[in-house]
């Protein structure tokens, strides 16, 4: 990695990172590019987030869904861990709580594939500070 030497370099880098994320989302088959974020903080891991994440990858492969599975920090819904945020392109992100293997299958077959909402959605109650 070349070191970032100026602020302008960093700003350019930021723009390209933003657009590359965008491109990643919109490229190929937009209907099938889904982003999945598994909350992987201590609370999540204790509740089985690691297993959920690996099962997600396995199940998505099996179901031939092209998706990007990443981990993230605590979303604050510790009462409902493991929590997973699913962003289907063109739709608002949705957080599912108390996710287990059965729920993963349900999320993939019902929500991701058919857009049918399922039980145990967590209403997102906060605003977050946006970009500059």
């Amino acid at each position, binding site marked *: 990695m070349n070191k*970032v030497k100026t602020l302008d370099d960093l700003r350019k880098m930021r723009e390209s990172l*933003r657009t590359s994320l965008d491109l990643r989302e919109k490229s190929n088959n937009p209907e099938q590019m889904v982003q999945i974020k598994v909350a992987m903080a201590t609370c999540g891991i204790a509740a089985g987030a690691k297993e959920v994440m690996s099962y997600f990858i396995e199940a998505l492969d099996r179901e031939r869904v092209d998706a990007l599975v*990443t981990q993230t*920090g605590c*979303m*604050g819904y*510790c*009462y409902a861990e493991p929590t997973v*945020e699913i962003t289907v392109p063109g739709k608002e992100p949705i957080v599912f709580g108390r996710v287990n293997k059965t729920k993963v299958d349900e999320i993939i077959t019902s929500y991701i594939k058919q*857009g049918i909402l399922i039980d145990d959605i967590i209403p997102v109650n906060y605003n977050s500070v946006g970009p500059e």
Partner: protein
Amino acid sequence: MAQYSNYILVCGGTGCRASQSELILQNLKEAVRQNGLQESVQVIRTGCFGFCEKGPVVKLIPDNTFYVQVTPEDADDIVNEHLIKGRKVERLLYVNPETNELILDSKHINFYKKQLRIALRNCGFINPENIDEYIARDGYIALGKALTEMTPEEVIKEIMDSGLRGRGGGGFPTGLKWQITRKVQAPQKYVVCNADEGDPGAFMDRSILEGDPHSIVEAMAINGYCTGASKGLVYIRAEYPLAVERLKIAIDQAKDYGFLGDNIFGTDFSFDIQIRYGAGAFVCGEETALIHSMEGLRGEATVKPPFPSESGYKGCPTNVNNVETYANIPVILLKGAKWFSSIGTEKSKGTKVFALAGKVNNVGLIEVPMGTTLREVIFGIGGGIKDGKKFKAVQTGGPSGGCLTEKHLDLPIDYDNLIAAGSMMGSGGMIVMDEDDCMVAMAKFYLDFTVEESCGKCAPCRIGNKRLHEMLQKITSGRGNIEDLDKLRNLAMVIKDTALCGLGQTSPNPVLSTMDNFYDEYLAHVDEQRCPSHQCRELTQYFINPEKCKGCTMCARICPVHAITGSRKVPHTIDSEICIRCGSCIEKCKFDAIYVH
């Protein structure tokens, strides 16, 4: 594949379910089916909306209409009026209690606007192990701006103008702290990140380090630039392995990208961060004790002055800030002091993260602007008290804080208000208690913690807290008398007045605040040898109601100490002398025949 155009979300939280939300759900599904809308409208059960006070809650998507206090009979109206005729059911809309206005959709409900994430802005949003995602969210731009476009004085001024105060509990103005450290002349200075989170139940620092470690790395570098320190140390408890791992990854990535190391952004500023482990002593969150611990000495506080900013780690000027404080720094530099200071109250700016716990429906981390009321936090965001019980008190500030009651619910939360009310901000622990909690036992519980965690250096904290605890033990076991209450208060006041460090000075707070707010409970314990909440084991007795008891022998068989006797099909009795009040019999009894008094 069904293409729904409308969704009806029905709250499936505990509170709403207790008010028949399951039936509402069934009725709505039925109404949708009857009107032949099942192809375009989906009715689903969600997790708690958090707004339990106004439950049951039903929300319609896409227009975000938010119906409150819905009954099963309202299902038809919602479907017929709203979905078919396109008219909102006005009687079910939420009314703004201040303006009496009807609120048409959830985005306009104050409650939902109350949470604002600054410190937690990236938590749950980015992959904490990927620096690129942090950069995509403006990461390290603040550092670049500070180093290349601002003087240290300008950065400090920005922080001072923002009104940011220490989030570790003390509430000392952050900018001022930086300025004091900057002004001390010394060849070597240090900045330290205090990640020794120790309040029981508080975990915001851990979450930030786990969810957004780069924000801490960036803020520490900015801090180093402002104070003239080339070295940063993170003091983190070894029980946070994941936070440590993520932080290590973040430090390595930042080094790779040149945000740490020599000549950052091509300037002559160089900065490096090292990790120091704590063994989990609560007192090591106190900055002088923390520094001693890092030096390899016994973790105990020393008298201030001298302050660490004058003489800290290895005798060098040292600026210590808490994780959450640091997490605010990059945003302040990006969005400006003016923006930050527009949030919050007159003397407490920005937001505060709270770890909401106890008898509240939504246990978790929340971030709200300073000045949000306790009511909004507990009933709004927290979703009210579990199992529909009555709110009794909330302990803020962890074991060093005090308990606040019904009368404090509308108190806007900020540093000064909490202190004035006999509690404190602390690091943001917030433990909610309901009618079943005994406040004397609660005070004893917190003393348990401080007795254990006192470093033992000064006499009032070492011996005084032990004596407080012993007196509470005496009172909760029914051996106390009215004089003990005066002695208890005197001792608590003296400890507060004479203890060496913050731990000792605040450890009697739970006792004093419960005595102030629940003196009648203390009186019941000493005057009548009675625990009004039936929590204090020695003051409760278990009885079997002979009217209800069928003599099934279940209780006698489960009792671990054989305190229950009785023949088959004859009402049983409990021998109080033997009974250890474990409660197993109550759980087992199918006839509700056993009660506590």
